[in-house]
């Protein structure tokens, strides 16, 4: 176990009958890191998370979290994890306060200790007016804030977010990411994210892409972009004849043309060689969508089961 690795997974396997959901999966997550776990539906993300959380037995492999082997002390690991599920799993007929009180008691937090933590979370997530309301009567965004409060009740070292922003409006999404960024800065919480929003994954420190239960790509977003996509130059104020004369693939965009080049160096070379054409332009890296498409041959959309 490396000192700065808070999650280490080695040779993880899990099958359901003939279906091999996770195949010899190995990766690690650094302490305090923002980690994104990507894959299309059925790629094995949820299965891996269920194994990490001790909700599903693995067939083989080793999982070590914060120095604790999952096989040796699963209860100690549960103390270190906070999970925000894809959909809210709190008790709809009960008030927010009752929900949080009953969940805090699962970690032995009650009385004054609970009230103090609730006050901290209320300030962090702006829960003040919601505490007396029934969870079933809250909007999707309000419910998501309660889900995050529930996950943070016991100050976990690792926060697992399983598609946390799916279906949320931009304002609530921004609020949630503000809270999560704050947590990373103030409490050094490690964030383990699965998402279908590639712009969220682009903010990660480290990304792992799964396909059919196997790891097919990993690295920082920049490394992945460099490895799996080229750069794009958007060229303005020229006619199509001039663009065609460059002899490289292009497509029309709003007000100009988008050229695909291998990398930034190739872009620079092309611009220097054709100054009469490149008078108004911008160079951008490929997006995480392009990385995902290039690595898996599939686009990422829909909800994971």
């Amino acid at each position, binding site marked *: 176990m490396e000192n700065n690795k808070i999650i280490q997974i080695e040779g993880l396997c899990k099958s359901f009958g003939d279906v091999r959901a996770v195949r010899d999966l190995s990766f690690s997550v650094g302490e305090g890191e923002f980690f994104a776990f990507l894959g299309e539906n059925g790629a094995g993300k949820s299965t891996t998370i269920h194994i990490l*959380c*001790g*909700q*599903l*037995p693995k067939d083989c492999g080793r999982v070590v979290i914060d120095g604790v082997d999952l096989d040796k002390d*699963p*209860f*100690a690991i*549960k*103390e270190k*994890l906070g*999970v925000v*599920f894809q*959909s809210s*799993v*709190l*008790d709809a*007929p*009960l008030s927010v306060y*009752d929900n949080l*009180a*009953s*969940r805090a*008691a*699962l*970690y*032995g937090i*009650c009385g004054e200790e609970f009230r103090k933590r609730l006050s901290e979370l209320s300030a962090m997530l702006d829960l003040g007016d919601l505490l007396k309301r029934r969870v079933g009567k809250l909007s999707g965004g309000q419910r998501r804030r309660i889900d995050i409060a*529930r996950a943070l009740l*016991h100050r976990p070292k690792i926060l697992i977010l399983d598609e946390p922003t799916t279906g949320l409006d931009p304002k609530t999404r921004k609020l949630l990411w503000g809270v999560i960024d704050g947590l990373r800065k103030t409490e050094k919480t490690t964030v383990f994210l699965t998402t279908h929003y590639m712009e969220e994954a682009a903010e990660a420190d480290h990304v792992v892409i799964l396909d059919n239960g196997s790891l097919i790509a990993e690295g920082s977003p920049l490394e992945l972009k460099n490895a799996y996509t080229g750069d794009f130059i958007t060229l303005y104020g020229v006619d199509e004849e001039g663009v065609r004369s460059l002899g490289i693939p292009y497509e029309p965009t709003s007000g100009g043309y988008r050229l695909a080049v291998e990398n930034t160096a190739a872009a620079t070379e092309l611009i220097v060689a054709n100054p009469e054409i490149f008078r108004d332009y911008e160079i951008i890296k490929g997006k995480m969508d392009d990385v995902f498409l290039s690595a898996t041959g599939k686009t990422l959309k829909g909800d994971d089961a």
Partner: protein
Amino acid sequence: MITTVALIKRNVKLFFRDKGMFFTALITPAILLVLYATFLGNVYEDSFRLGLGGAEISDELMGACVGGQLISSILAVSCVTVAFCSNMLMVQDKANGSRRDLMISPVKASTLSIAYYAATLICTLLICFVATAICLGYLAVIGWYLSVGDVLWLLLDVLLLAMFGTALSSVINFFLSTQGQIAAVGSVVSSGYGFLCGAYMPISQFGEGLQRVISFLPGTYGTSLLRNHALRGALSEMESQGIPSEAVEEMRDAIDCNLYFFDIKVDLRVMLAVLASTVVLLLCVYIFLNLRKMKKIGR
């Protein structure tokens, strides 16, 4: 302990806040009340008078007999159907994902199981003891012949039957995991248990083969215990008013105060022992099922 108490509080609150579960639990007792109010009460009264061979008894004493029959039936089914409905929370938690949220914490599966059992028992007892109080109030109005001992026995019967209903529902619900299964089991229990335990209709009126089959079902003895304790005072009063003991004994047979296991009359103490042993046996099965599951998932 903090965790167990918190989970019990959560489960009890959820039962009483979830109007669907709460009112479903009261359907069977409500059906019984409607049946008695519309025709069963009159049927029993006519049948009792016929059985007494024209002997004159007061309306109050007749009311105590018919009322005793009614309240014992209501309490017999309530203890089991309320327990089943309350314990549906165990299945609902699996169906709506709450169970995953609970299991993500360092709580033991055994703690969850204990909390479900205890919360179900508390909900069932709360409702059934309130129902018992209302039933006794009803008897006080139409004809009271119970002693303090009878009332205490009735309360013990309710306690035992509630424990039986809770243990039985815990074992059955253990295997359920979807809303469809909840609805199916809820419907079968609500509609079927009243017949099987002799609440809607005395077992003595069933065919001989069916009577023998039903004599193997422990819930039947719970109904009979309630009948005996709810009607003891009224039937004794009949004897003291000169009604022949043979006629009263026939009445006991007709309304299931006397139960027969292959023609052998079952003593009240044996009925108690059967019910208590069944509770212990079901609890052992519930514990075994939980231990097996915990071993399987390594918790």
